[in-house]
């Protein structure tokens, strides 16, 4: 195979490919914390997040990454959480966010 440098390169698509199989690790996250499916991405969790005041940490977005099967993009993001639990008090759908975060941090 030849690799010629023309001064430009071919990029991968940005599109999320939902035809790919859901990674087993993420299936397990749901199995261990089913309430994650209950999120409606209202943003309540992120608006009052201690970590989110200083970083780009938004729990509901991590949860979307889980539901779209994007394991590699999830890596290490959950570690930004300060585990204060304020989000869980605010969540209108009763998602067990703290447990979710712990599971995501272990991926």
């Amino acid at each position, binding site marked *: *195979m*030849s*690799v010629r440098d023309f001064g430009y390169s071919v*990029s991968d*698509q940005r599109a999320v490919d939902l035809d790919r199989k859901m990674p087993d690790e993420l299936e397990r996250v749901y199995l261990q914390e089913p309430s994650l499916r209950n999120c409606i991405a209202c943003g309540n969790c992120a608006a009052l997040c201690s970590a989110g005041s200083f970083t780009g940490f938004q729990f509901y977005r991590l949860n979307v990454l889980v539901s779209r099967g994007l394991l590699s993009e999830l890596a290490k993001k959950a570690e930004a959480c300060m585990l204060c639990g304020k989000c869980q008090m605010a969540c209108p759908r009763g998602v067990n966010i703290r447990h979710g975060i712990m599971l995501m941090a272990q991926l």
Partner: protein
Amino acid sequence: MSSFNWKSYQKEIPDDHFFYVRSCIRQTFYPGSEAAFLHILRQVLHKDVFEDKRHTTCTGIGYHSDIVPLETLMTVVGRQFALMTEAGYKHLLVSCVTSFGIYLEILDMWKHFPEKLAETRLALWKTTRREFEVPLLVAHTSDVIFHFKEQILEKSVVQLVDPSTGIALRGVEHVGCHYAKIFPQDGIGGAEFPKVLSGLIEAWGGAVVDYPERRHCCGFGFRNYLIKANRGYSVSNSKIKFESMAIYEPDFILTNCPGCNMFLDRWQYALSEIEGKTYDKTGVGIPVLSACELAGLMLGMDPWTLGLQMHQVQVESLLDKMGVKYAHMEKYYLAGKPTVGPERPSVLLVQEN
């Protein structure tokens, strides 16, 4: 794939008396395609096609790349119309899809902003002392080929059928974005289910392959190609198309836009060099033909007179499937004398005869 609602997008295509404007890309990179079209219209179909050698580029590529201002573009368009008016023609026949979009856009703009038309008339008068009428009808070369597809079929010597097996050849079509995505009502079949090329393939015996990324842009994207730093976007978009069509194993790609023709052709080479990959099984690539070139082949024109050797993806695989006769040794003749052919690409195969 037959569709019922393409018929709601019908446009009036003139039968005769065309004022022809050329395409920058087509005449530079595929000059035989343009010559073949004029030959078919004049010598085969006996139509009156007038061309004024003083006509220029429409400046559309410059306009879409933020180099040519709108006022300049409108005045250049006005000048083309002036040449048409002076020659006594009312039907503008446009070779290029970018130009086609430009003419339609300017005409539509003048309809909504008559003061822009007045400004253009004034600017053209001041600079060239010319006056113009707007065309009665604007047609693209592919519209006209579609319009005369039955006559071309009647006179054809080969069709989109493998004569040894009787199997219809599989074609994917790529309609240029500016053919109907800006003004769907001005394209045969509209923008979602364009018929202008698929209708040709069907009428000429082939099978149309509908594939997921059929409506995706070829990747030209004007400044995305012209600026080297952005060129990766262009080639990556073409790759989306090739990947999407490859599983259907098409025998050819049919285009109506010179730009698309160029990018779908050249980028197969670039991708093969960068990634070491071709999108057909045999490694020769998927031949890309314009509607004009395909019509030329159907009518028995010599592939080397048609200039098909100017394509990056060599067309012999398709010629053989169609049963087109050609002399391999004459491929790189110039004025009847042999010349040295181009350098071989390192991945894309060139068929040896």
